[in-house]
């Protein structure tokens, strides 16, 4: 029994490792598993690291734009940041929270910064050097703030 279970775990790990390099975009508020399932075939490079209690998935798109996705211990993507020459596909990475982005740009011609109890979202910068982030404060690890997001 033990041996068999062990085999299953190894298989699962290999499966995940095999999928990770092709993950394109995680959706804010979704979990890692859905991210894996939702891969969009972007030709992106992926690395992971740990930071302030979060697992950080860093995707580098062909344009040079970097997306960082922050997963909590329970596997929920609670924050995203992006930086680079092109805006990433925000509809895909923000998921249900893309409507908050649209709200932001409706009240602005350009950069905007919204900070509510449920979401902090900002988009700024210049053509060729965009920067932005989205954070779900209620899903974030204790003490994790927008100051912890990569620029």
């Amino acid at each position, binding site marked *: 029994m033990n041996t068999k279970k062990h085999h299953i775990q190894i298989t699962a790990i290999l499966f995940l490792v095999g999928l990770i390099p092709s993950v394109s975009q995680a959706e804010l508020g979704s979990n890692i598993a859905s991210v894996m399932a939702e891969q969009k075939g972007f030709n992106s490079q992926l690395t992971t690291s740990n930071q302030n209690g979060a697992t950080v998935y860093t995707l580098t798109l062909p*344009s040079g734009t970097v997306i960082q996705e922050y997963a909590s211990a329970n596997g929920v993507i609670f924050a995203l940041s992006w930086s680079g*020459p*092109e*805006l990433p*596909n*925000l*509809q*895909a990475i923000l998921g249900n929270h*893309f409507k908050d982005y*649209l709200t932001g*740009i*409706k*009240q*602005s*011609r*350009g*950069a*905007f*910064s919204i*900070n509510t109890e449920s979401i*902090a979202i*900002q*988009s*700024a*910068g*210049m*053509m*060729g*050097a*965009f*920067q932005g*982030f989205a954070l779900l404060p209620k899903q974030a690890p204790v003490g994790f703030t*927008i*100051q912890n*997001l990569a*620029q």
Partner: protein
Amino acid sequence: MKLMRPSLKITVYLLAFILAACGGGGGDSTTITTAIQSGDYTSTNLAQNAISFSVQNIDGNDVNLPYVSVNICQPGTTKCKIVPNVLLDTGSIGLRILSSVLGDLQLSSQTFNNVPVAECATFLNGVTWGPVKIADIKMSSEVASSIPIQVIDDANYLTAPTRCSNGLPTLQSYSKLRANAILGVGLLIADGQKYYACASNLGANCTTSTIPLPPSSQVQNPVASFATNNNGIIMQLPSIGSSGAVSVTGSLFFGIDTQSNNSSSGASIIPTNSSGYFTTTFNSVTLTSFIDSASNGLFFPAGNQSTVLTSCKTSSGFYCPDTTQSFTANIPLQNNTTGIINFSIANAEALFATRNAAFNNLGGVLQNQFDWGLPFFFGKTVYFGITDKASTSALGPYYGYKN
């Protein structure tokens, strides 16, 4: 996307829109002039390498946006059109122009492997979609000959494909652009956006994937393409009072240290990284920063001033302190020296109530960054050094300023 009236809801127009300046230059007997409507702005030629620009309302709603006019011509000909109300944007690169203002100008397509090219350019608040065309862009005596520009709202490319818009609005009309064109004259030479090859010159027949269009074939910063005076621009605006001004006229010079009227002597030079960013220290916090003529305020985090720098009630992106607040920020200059910038933030809703269009003390909310928008420019000469091009003071990219 509609600009809201400042007295109703104010928008943080931080924009990365870029505008181009162009020349009021006409002079060609065959120049066809677009009908000038009330409030339209056309630049005056101030010198062979200089034109005027204006900070004014062009539709009664915007504040702190600078406009020029550009003269766009069929390459190598005197068949030209003066286009007024062009946003002067140091936060983007290249000229993007509405098809409707080109009239009967015939512009050939940029091609890639002999196939016409279309572009998807991203701004923070939407995308522009349309063919890349070749035109001469003239401002006073300066000419950018046969450079790629983007034509938007072209009849053959009306609908931006989903892979371009990705749910964002398309900026394909005067009301959405709030201008006839955007003149991007920032620190870069090429715009680095997404390009597609389109069989039959039809938007519906464009490639699904982007094409590797070389930078020299992409939409270009017109200034970098001038024969001379091509290493940067200088924007000069007079000082204004604390309650603002209805409109303010400034000077836009082409070239830095190339003529007697564009010296950088005495300027404080701010080196940047390859993206045009530097750092500002404000409230003891170090913030990623840039200088942008098309950001209509100073946007930064209130930090430990948050009890004083409160957000406005209806214009929540802007600051509404009870009384005007004075601050200081530090920025690193070349030769390991430090620049000290003094600025003030007034109550934005009180400013908007004046119905003025130019303010040197309008501020708004941004986290982790300091965006030095148009309020920074009043009472200063501001320099933008183009990447890999040298002036007496520095090699681009860099910003500079002189009080």
